[in-house]
């Protein structure tokens, strides 16, 4: 028992030395690998590092008679398999195993075999976890300890079987077995804990940077809503700098610097020409360009005293065309972490998406305006000439009234010339419709009654300009002017629960599903309201044939003024 405990303490004590080393190195960027594990040069680095740890395991072991070494080699071999897969495990195991053979002793063959086996088993554990739980999963401490106990038991089997030179291999296994199994299992369990911990840290930082990219995007949303507008970019750059904590942020279009915020702003002027070949490369290739400040430096082409040393340049693209770049700089001795890099890339794609949305909105708005102009142009000649004819007729009998009609006509056309993109208050809309109705009442004096009923508290309600007029005109065209007898038109504006209802009603009930330009007019009104207040609002048509057609416009009730 005494021997067991003293061996165990010695092994654990020896191991704690490289445990501490590993903990420190696990924080070093040099050993950082993505979820798919180390690749290329990093893989070689891993091999050297873990082979070193494993060989140290032999040296820090306790020398027993007949060249037997109670050791902690299993830890390095096993863990290298966990982090690098079966091939790395095999390489590390073989290296340390060869070294053990070179050290010699009666149990050298058994130890070398066991170390190779443990490296491969560690790798197989990773491979199995990847298959069952997804890339980048590391084994937990229980699994690590369990596997190590099993492989060390096999190791003891090897000692018994493959140590013919030893006088009493069974006794050796009895003595070194329990402490080695326990010490190595503890070691692997501790490594697993440290690696898990490190992984969680990284995930946390990544989650933070995603949240930061999203927060930045939310703050720039309004600023980029009207596209890549040079006037708004300094503010956008300021927000990005604030959210990323970078040394400086620069925004360019495809030919010049449009905004620069942060360190080096004294010589990086905006607006100014693009001078860096990194920027030009990003614009030409459409790919992220990264001068990390280690292998590649941002050598400022303007000033030699520029504090900026590393840069991440992410292209902003719209429909596959690079329209500019977002650049994040860090000063010397303040390099990017890979997390910061992913933040920059995420930010660029979010900003690109915003620009795309802005362009889409703009195109949609333009189209609607074009269509609206078209509809207005189609509507007017008939109304105009009939109105003029009416004025001519009234002039014979009542010049003063004719003058009034002409003024209404002028008011109507003046409002028609207004920019259709603008918003109008309900009051303005009713005035527009009122001028129209005055003319129509004169034309159809004997046949037309118009009733208007408007909640006066709603007169300041904002609507897209030209909402009411096309609907009232439709009521005439498809309703009243189709019936032979007299007709009534009603315009009602009232409150509903959380909404405002604007109803335009005629008593002809001759509404047909419109397929022509008039239908376009209604669709446009609907579309513009939905663009303004959201898809849940807009137009609804109810028709009782021969009795009534009612077009209802639903918009949200505005918040009560404070």
């Amino acid at each position, binding site marked *: 028992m005494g021997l067991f405990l003293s061996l165990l303490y010695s092994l654990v004590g020896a191991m704690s030395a490289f445990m501490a080393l590993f903990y420190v190195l696990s924080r070093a960027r040099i050993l950082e690998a993505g979820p798919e594990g180390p690749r290329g040069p990093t893989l070689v680095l891993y091999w050297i590092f873990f082979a070193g740890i494993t060989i140290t395991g032999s040296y820090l072991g306790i020398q027993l008679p007949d060249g037997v070494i109670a050791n902690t080699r299993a830890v390095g071999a096993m863990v290298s398999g966990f982090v690098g897969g079966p091939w790395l495990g095999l390489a590390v195991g073989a290296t340390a195993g060869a070294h053990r053979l070179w050290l010699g002793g009666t149990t050298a063959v058994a130890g070398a075999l066991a170390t190779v086996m443990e490296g491969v088993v560690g790798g197989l554990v990773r491979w199995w976890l990847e298959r069952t739980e997804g890339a980048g999963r590391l084994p937990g401490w229980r699994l690590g300890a369990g596997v190590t106990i099993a492989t060390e038991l096999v190791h003891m089997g090897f000692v018994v079987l493959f140590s013919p030179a030893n006088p009493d291999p069974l006794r050796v296994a009895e003595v070194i077995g329990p402490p080695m199994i326990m010490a190595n299992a503890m070691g692997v369990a501790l490594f697993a804990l440290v690696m898990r911990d490190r992984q969680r840290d990284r995930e946390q930082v990544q989650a933070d940077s995603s949240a930061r990219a999203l927060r930045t995007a939310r703050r720039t949303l309004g600023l980029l809503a009207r596209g890549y507008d040079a006037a708004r970019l300094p503010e956008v750059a300021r927000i990005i700098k604030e959210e990323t904590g970078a040394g400086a942020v620069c925004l360019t279009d495809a030919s010049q610097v449009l905004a620069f915020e942060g360190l080096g702003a004294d010589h990086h002027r905006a607006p100014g020409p693009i001078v860096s070949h990194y920027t030009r490369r990003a614009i030409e290739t459409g790919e992220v360009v990264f001068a990390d400040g280690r292998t590649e430096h941002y050598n400022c082409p303007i000033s030699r005293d520029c504090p900026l040393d590393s840069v991440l340049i992410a292209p902003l693209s719209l429909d596959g065309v690079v329209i500019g770049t977002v650049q994040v700089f860090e000063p010397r001795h303040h390099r990017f972490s890979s997390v910061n890099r992913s933040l920059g890339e995420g930010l660029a794609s979010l900003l690109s998406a915003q620009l795309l949305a802005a362009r889409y909105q703009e195109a949609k708005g333009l189209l609607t305006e074009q269509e609206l102009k078209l509809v207005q142009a189609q509507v007017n000649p008939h109304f105009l*000439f*009939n109105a003029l*004819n009416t004025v*001519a007729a009234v002039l014979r009998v009542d010049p003063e009234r004719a003058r009034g009609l002409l003024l209404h006509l002028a008011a109507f056309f003046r409002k028609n010339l207004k920019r259709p993109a603008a918003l109008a208050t309900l009051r303005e809309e009713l005035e527009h419709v009122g001028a129209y109705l005055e003319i129509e009442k004169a*034309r159809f004096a004997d046949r037309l009654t118009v009733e208007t009923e408007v909640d006066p508290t709603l007169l300041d309600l904002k609507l897209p300009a030209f909402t009411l007029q096309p609907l009232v005109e439709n009521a005439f065209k498809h309703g009243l*002017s*189709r019936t*032979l007898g007299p007709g009534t038109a009603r315009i009602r504006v009232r409150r509903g629960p959380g909404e405002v209802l604007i109803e335009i009603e005629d008593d002809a009930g001759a509404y047909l599903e419109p397929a022509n330009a008039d239908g376009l007019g209604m669709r446009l009104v609907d579309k513009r309201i939905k663009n303004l207040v959201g898809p849940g609002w807009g137009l609804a048509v109810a028709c009782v044939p021969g009795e009534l057609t009612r077009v209802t416009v639903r918009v949200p009730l505005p918040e009560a003024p404070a």
Partner: protein
Amino acid sequence: MIRAVVVDDEALARDELVALLREVGGVEVVASCANAVEALPAVRKERPDVLFLDVQMPAISGFELLAMLDPDTLPRVVFVTAHDEFAVKAFEQNASDYLLKPVERARLARTLERLGHNGGGSPGALAARAITRIPCLGPRSIRLVDVAEVESVRSSEAGVYVVTPAGEHFTELTLRVLEERAGLFRCHKQHLVNVDRVAEILLGDEEGAAIRTRSGGTVPVSRRFLSALKERLGLSWAKP
């Protein structure tokens, strides 16, 4: 003196045109109508020389009204409209002339002058335009009956009646117009039948035959139209 009927659904537009015609002179406005339904009896009763006709009118447009007038008593037609998008169509309808609102006095004078020159001439054949709805006058209402609903049409001393499964309706249109423009078949001097609504033909004595319509009404068939009817029905049976 040229006798004119003015048809426009706007009272002020009618007044304006009547006033202009008075100013130009040489025209007597014998009737002024607010729609096609009023215009039909007015034209029949007054037999004007010229019809000033608005194109866009409620229920029945100016073009439709033209198709409903009996070719025998058809006056010359001048379309009056606010916008020239109908101009080409108006001349396809063999209109004599075409005026734009607001109407210019000098332009109206030229129109009348032209009408006066060949005032005695015939209005010329109208391009055939199908009638799909028949305006019918009820005691208190005006009904537009779809031709497809009509079973038959009968003419009597009292006038022309359109017979549908739902009842009979008085119309101002003549049998001839309905026969030529609405695709109804002449089976008797005073009767038309909608061939699509014929259920059976009851062959009777030498006087002729009778048609039973789908809703059970009977329509007499006179001997001289019988063979044409058989042929028509035979043809329609031949191609289902």
